[in-house]
């Protein structure tokens, strides 16, 4: 057997004996580290995944970016709108909904009618509550609940719409109200119909007054997207809905802070359990430590042995905790956000490294105490 192998053998034997002989204490310390690492790993996954989870969640509350015509002109071309929207990352766009506004009359009552792509509007505004059905054809439309109240309309009511279109040309037509919209906003007083229907009634073509865009992303990312659109398509001006984006950013920051606090508590749990366990171990083993020092072990050797034990516990607890943390993150994802959390491989080395570091820090005070033990206690037989 090589001399180095002999040294390794004695070290491993001392380490394993120390861990096995104090099985119950080691299990308690390992359990604490594992629980702490589970929370740590789970929280790290959630921390990384919160924006992804919440950005989609936030998007159920409507648009966060709008395109408006540049300059004094009140309309923008749909082609320019499509070019600007094409600059957004396709995988993050929930919906792009242009609106062309016109004033129509029903039963001599004026209403603001929006021509739009209703499928897109449905995606962009998932918070709309609908009584009835979405329009199934161009001759059906949605009506705001307040507007419907004014004229006593209900889903299925057929109404005659009229007005003046391009070049002041009068128009009129029969349409069916397929559903009533409630949003709690101005939509409750409006009409919504397919863009093509509004265009055929008014004689306009390929124009929009406003484009609502619902896109997943942080405030910074949205700002970059808006800047890219502004630079590439000068006829449209992108604007962040600051009220929405700011609220989302604030909620995200608070959630992340909450996750950070929970993680700190988990680390404190590891620290206290390891420090207590290690201190007890040092007190129980003072004679053994004294013997080793009497045999020539210096403080570095004694500290190395205890820190080695701490490192083994930290690595084992960190690995177990990373594994358990994955399921913990899934549990949080499904129960809180309704969808599973994405697995972030970096959580494993991060959880192990933090567990080892916390364990080592927790072991330091007891280890210093071990180094202070006087070997003379062995000779005295105390």
């Amino acid at each position, binding site marked *: *057997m090589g*001399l*180095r192998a002999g040294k390794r053998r004695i070290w491993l034997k*001392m380490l394993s004996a120390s861990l096995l002989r104090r099985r119950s204490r080691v299990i308690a310390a390992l359990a604490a580290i594992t629980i702490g690492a589970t929370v740590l790993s789970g929280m790290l996954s959630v921390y990384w995944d919160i924006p992804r989870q919440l950005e989609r969640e936030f998007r159920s509350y409507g648009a966060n970016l709008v395109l408006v015509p540049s300059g004094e002109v009140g309309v923008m071309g749909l082609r320019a709108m499509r070019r600007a929207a094409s600059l957004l990352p396709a995988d993050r766009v929930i919906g792009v909904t242009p609106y062309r506004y016109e004033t129509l009359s029903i039963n001599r009552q004026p209403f603001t009618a929006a021509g739009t792509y209703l499928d897109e509007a449905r995606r962009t505004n998932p918070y709309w509550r609908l009584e009835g059905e979405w329009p199934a054809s161009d001759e059906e439309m949605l009506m705001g609940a307040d507007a419907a109240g004014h004229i006593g309309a209900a889903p299925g009511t057929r109404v005659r719409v009229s007005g003046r279109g391009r070049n002041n040309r009068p128009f009129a037509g029969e349409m069916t109200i397929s559903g009533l919209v409630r949003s709690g906003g101005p939509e409750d007083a409006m009409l919504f119909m397919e863009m093509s229907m509004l265009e055929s009634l008014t004689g306009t073509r390929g124009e929009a007054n406003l484009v609502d865009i619902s896109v997943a992303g942080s405030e910074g990312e949205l700002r970059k997207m808006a800047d890219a659109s502004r630079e590439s398509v000068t006829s449209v001006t992108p604007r962040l809905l600051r009220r929405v984006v700011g609220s989302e950013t604030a909620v995200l920051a608070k959630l992340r802070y909450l996750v950070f606090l929970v993680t700190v508590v988990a680390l404190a749990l590891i620290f206290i359990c390891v420090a207590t366990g290690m201190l007890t171990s040092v007190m129980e083993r003072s004679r053994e430590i004294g013997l080793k020092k*009497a045999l*020539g072990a210096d403080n570095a050797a004694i500290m190395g042995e205890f820190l080695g034990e701490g490192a083994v516990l930290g690595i084992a607890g960190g690995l177990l905790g990373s594994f358990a943390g994955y399921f913990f993150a899934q549990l949080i994802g499904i129960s809180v956000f309704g969808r599973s959390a994405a697995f972030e491989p970096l959580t494993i080395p991060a959880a192990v490294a933090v567990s080892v570091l916390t364990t080592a820090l927790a072991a330091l005070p007891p280890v210093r105490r071990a180094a202070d033990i*006087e070997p003379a206690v062995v*000779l*005295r037989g105390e």
Partner: protein
Amino acid sequence: MGESGPDNILELIGVTMDYGQVKALNDVSMTVRRGEWLSIMGPSGSGKTTMMNIVGCLDRPTSGRVILDGEEISRLGGRALTTIRRDKIGLIFQQFHLAPYLTAVENVMLAQYYHSLPDEEEAMAALSRVGLSERAGHLPSQLSGGEQQRVCIARALINHPMLILADEPTGNLDEANEHMVLDIFRQLHSGGSAIIVVTHAHDVGARAERVVMLEHGRIAGIVEGRGIHGHRHDDAHA
């Protein structure tokens, strides 16, 4: 008493050790020659253990000088004392103090582990020297008291110390094992090792070349030659 010089492995000059108001050692001076077998005897509280701790580099005196192998060690720091203890001194304890989870040979290797690098062949040779090569793979709990003490002796010898310090080495042994341990000491002494044995037992102390009698922290007498027949107080501060 012996004179200062290169023939001495150990010199104590006016060594005093205070524990508060209590003087555990009071102005003690003595020498141990290279290859000498010396016993330290005295009643409980006479300062034997304190002297062991100081000579064994486990403690520092309050005042006085301790010279080991020509080096003044009484004012050295903890790290330097550890190095000297590891390199120059072999300790044997009354209660053996073997690591219960290591086999006999691994217990011997433990001293090598802290000294340099464990060498199993060398550890086996040390066990063989104390007649325990057949029991090398046994744990301390599987060994008799005498066998455990012999493992302790092998451990003390493994790093070739220039001074062996034994604290009541036969205190926990029956007569047969006591003779066996003393016989090993005799062989070590014949091989040129310096041995200091702290003991209560007169028949054990009497095996030494000189016996230092301690009382109330002072040397009450030193008996030269084998056998204890009386105290020679006039030697106390030679």
